């Protein structure tokens, strides 16, 4: 006999189980029409695999599992699929859900049943797939696909949950009393799949018959049937694991990580039926109780409308509704036309006598009763306070999501506060906020990417136009333009590569990598800047080419145009290089980037200073050039003006070269240097690089403008002269 542990809190509500345990499991009449929601389990709803009008046999699969976290659905009886449409659904929201509607033909004709006789020798994964296709899910209430829960092996303890702690419910009790042998063969299958060291079957001590039946069925095996003290919610998986093994499974941790797994007796029963008899989950034991004439347990087909079951049990006329589940955690059916689901362990006809409305609520008096009752060891009054004030962050900090919504706190609260309602509200608000945030983030990324794309397309267009212009200008001006065009080609390829890289970075960012995101952001900006610059350069080149074309007669200006074109090409190259540097820095694939010696930083600073100086010089040149132009316009000889413009252009070019060199040095140093001696923060380097790039770009722009201005002033003079 193993030692028992206790869990904190818990309550002892009136059990009210004896009403429904007096009769054996009954079989209600075959309903005329069954409503089978596709969403009877946790995870993705099943996908229908029958068509409206199709005749189905009992046990035939009518919807298949969609992905791993899903389970199949089968026809509970033979008949015709008459609709696949929204219908009342057993859910607290009262929302309709897509159901497969089957009109029974009354013949209840099975399809050939195929078990899985070789379960002892086949791969466990095969058996798990089989179970998923047989629609086996946890019948304790969580309806989690069982195939997934079976996935770990070499457990320490397998816990079989027969505690059934909620008042009124007795379906597991009756199942254990009447079908213990099947349960035990189910356990054997689970044991084969999971190979636990020991098997503990926990049953609350208020079910002596069930304990006796299970003990008898387990005779000869080493499964231990353990009577656990009656206390709500000892039937919670975590609580039962704690009681039987002493292990507390924290929130967000899988119990298998701690060597334990827990299955409901109803679940292992369906496992046995599926594997040994080839019967998918098409029915379940459900307790019909409350304000009914004949409270009892029945084996009801899934999809049977709740109203029909209640009518069969003799729902009292004064009953005002039907609760699905127990009185602690169940919910009132918004529409009793809803079909029975795999989660439906109990249907209680409620009435004002059985469930009198709560007295009006008072303010919380901080009596601490709720904290004493909470099995999750929370401080429910604080959670209530935060949830009420919609201070969800605080509520989460106080472990709101550890709450198992057992209702114990609400049950004991002398102020009659519906505490759990507040927790459910807070939880769903938090989930909604997370969903909204996710979609907003996605929208933001997509929007930013779109803007980047538009920018890029513009640039590309401009580039194409420039190329075109350069090509057409070349023969007219008889200039050796092939050079710029030739450099353009590989440059374009490079640009394409960079773009691809940047897109990769953006995609990575979308994927949610935090630090790389910042870097790729920078890279992206740098790229956009580079692209803009390219556009400007191209425009300059185009203008220059046009100029050249217009004044093809004069040799001197064509010289200038050539120079301008060469400059433009060089600038393009530099810009691309800068962009490449930035991009490679930003790419998450180069983890060397963050490790940069300080002298690189210094270099970057120097480059920045140089660039600034160059910028100043360029401005001066520009001023001079424009002044020269103005002066030249009325009287001065063309040669003079040209000379000045040339000088300005040369000056600017030299300065540009210097700036470019600094920039290049820096750009190369950053990714190339992998010496891990002096770790400097990557972002800082990037920042400096960015600054340097910006300044260099501005400087280049200024120089270009100067050149253009000079050119603009010239043509009239040329014509004049």
């Amino acid at each position, binding site marked *: 006999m193993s030692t028992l542990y206790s869990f904190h809190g818990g309550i002892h509500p009136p059990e009210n189980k004896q009403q429904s345990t007096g009769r054996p499991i009954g079989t209600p009449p075959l309903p005329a029409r069954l409503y089978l929601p596709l969403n009877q389990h946790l995870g993705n709803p099943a996908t229908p695999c029958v068509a409206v009008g199709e005749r189905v046999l009992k046990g035939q699969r009518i919807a298949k599992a969609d992905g791993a976290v899903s389970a199949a659905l089968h026809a509970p009886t033979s008949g015709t699929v008459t609709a696949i449409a929204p219908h009342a659904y057993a859910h607290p929201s009262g*929302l309709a859900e897509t159901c497969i509607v089957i009109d029974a033909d009354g013949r209840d004709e099975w399809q050939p049943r195929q078990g899985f006789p070789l379960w002892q020798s086949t791969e466990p994964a095969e058996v798990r797939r089989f179970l998923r296709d047989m629609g086996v899910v946890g019948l304790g209430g969580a309806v989690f696909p069982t195939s997934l829960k079976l996935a770990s092996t070499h457990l320490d303890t397998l816990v079989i949950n027969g505690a059934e702690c909620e008042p009124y419910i007795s379906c597991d009790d009756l199942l254990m009393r009447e079908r213990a042998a099947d349960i035990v063969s189910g356990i054997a299958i689970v044991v084969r799949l999971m190979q636990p060291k020991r098997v503990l079957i926990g049953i609350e001590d208020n079910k002596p018959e069930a304990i006796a039946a299970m003990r008898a069925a387990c005779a000869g095996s080493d499964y231990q049937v353990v009577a656990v003290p009656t206390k709500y919610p000892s039937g919670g998986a975590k609580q039962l694991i704690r009681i039987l093994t002493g292990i507390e499974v924290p929130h967000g941790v899988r119990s298998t990580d701690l060597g334990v797994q827990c299955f409901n007796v109803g679940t292992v029963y369906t496992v046995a039926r599926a594997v040994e008899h080839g019967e998918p989950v098409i029915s379940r034991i459900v307790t019909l109780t409350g304000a009914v004439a004949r409270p009892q347990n029945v084996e009801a087909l899934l999809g049977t409308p709740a109203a029909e079951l209640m009518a069969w049990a003799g729902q009292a006329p004064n009953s005002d509704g039907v609760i699905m589940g127990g009185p602690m955690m169940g919910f009132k059916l918004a529409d009793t036309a809803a079909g029975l689901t795999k989660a439906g362990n109990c249907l209680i006809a409620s009435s004002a006598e059985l469930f009198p409305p709560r007295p009006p609520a008072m303010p919380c008096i901080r009596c601490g009763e709720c904290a004493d009752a909470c099995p999750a060891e929370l401080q429910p009054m604080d959670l209530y306070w935060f949830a009420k004030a919609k201070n969800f962050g605080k509520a989460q900090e106080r472990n709101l999501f550890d709450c198992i919504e057992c209702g114990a706190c609400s049950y004991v609260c002398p102020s009659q506060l519906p505490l759990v309602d507040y927790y459910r*509200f807070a939880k769903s608000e938090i989930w909604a906020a997370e969903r909204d945030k996710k979609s907003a983030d996605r929208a933001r990324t*997509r929007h930013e990417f779109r803007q980047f794309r538009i920018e890029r397309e513009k640039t590309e267009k401009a580039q194409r136009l420039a190329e075109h212009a350069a090509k057409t200008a070349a023969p007219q001006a008889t200039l050796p333009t092939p050079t710029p065009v030739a450099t353009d080609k590989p440059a374009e390829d490079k640009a394409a590569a960079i773009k691809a890289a940047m897109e990769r970075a953006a995609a990575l960012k979308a994927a949610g990598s935090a630090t790389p995101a910042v870097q790729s952001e920078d890279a992206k900006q740098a790229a956009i800047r580079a692209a803009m610059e390219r556009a400007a350069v191209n425009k300059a080149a185009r203008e220059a080419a046009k100029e050249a074309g217009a004044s093809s007669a004069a040799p001197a200006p064509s010289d200038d145009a050539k120079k301008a074109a060469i400059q433009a090409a060089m600038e393009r190259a530099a810009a691309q290089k800068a962009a490449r540097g930035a991009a490679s820095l930003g790419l998450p694939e180069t983890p060397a980037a963050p490790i940069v010696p300080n002298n690189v930083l210094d270099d970057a600073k120097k480059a920045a200073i140089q660039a600034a100086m160059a910028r100043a010089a360029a401005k001066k040149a520009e001023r001079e050039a424009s002044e020269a132009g103005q002066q030249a316009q009325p009287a001065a000889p063309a040669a003079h003006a040209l000379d000045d413009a040339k000088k300005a252009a040369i000056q600017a070019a030299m300065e540009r070269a210097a700036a470019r060199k600094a920039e290049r040095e820096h750009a190369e140093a950053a990714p190339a240097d992998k010496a891990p001696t002096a770790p400097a923060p990557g972002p800082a380097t990037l920042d400096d690089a960015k600054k340097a790039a910006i300044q260099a770009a501005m400087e280049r722009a200024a120089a270009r403008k100067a050149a253009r201005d000079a050119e603009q002033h010239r043509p009239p003079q040329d014509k004049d002269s």
Partner: protein
Amino acid sequence: MSGLLLALAIMAALAVLLGAVLGFASVKFKVEADPLVDKIDAVLPQTQCGQCSYPGCRPYATAIAAGEADINRCPPGGEDGIHKLAELLGVDYKPFDEGAAQPKPKSVALINEELCIGCTLCIQACPVDAILGSAKQMHTIIASECTGCELCIAPCPVDCIRMVPVGTTLKNWKWDYPVIPIASIPTKAA
């Protein structure tokens, strides 16, 4: 005299000590603040609809941060959004202007695929690239990416796009704020 000196000494010591504690705290517990624009942008719903009269959420965020725009310009953000902005910026809540665009339930655009002529105009209008299709081919909207900005409706030459309210589904259904027959809600009873 010595009492006075002692008192002074104690006060001075206290001042130094508390100063040190404060200094330490300000270093130790320093909060790295996002730039304001980012924070505002994070609150905005990213619908990118331009109903605020700015060409997208970020420009609006920038305008708010610069003090150029009111916080009540974003209908998709709803009242909640205004409350959040008010809280973030430490200003008073301000309802939507009368006559200005009002919040409405979230919808997504739907293209009537029979009518679509494949003109790509809507693709160009969509701020989040949620429309798929190419010239002369039927277009379709990726509902999960659609922000409901309605910017694609006007450009469509054949008026084949309409907004479909998202509605409540099991996925986005929320528990209500508990309304309890609490006796301490004064006005309700009256």
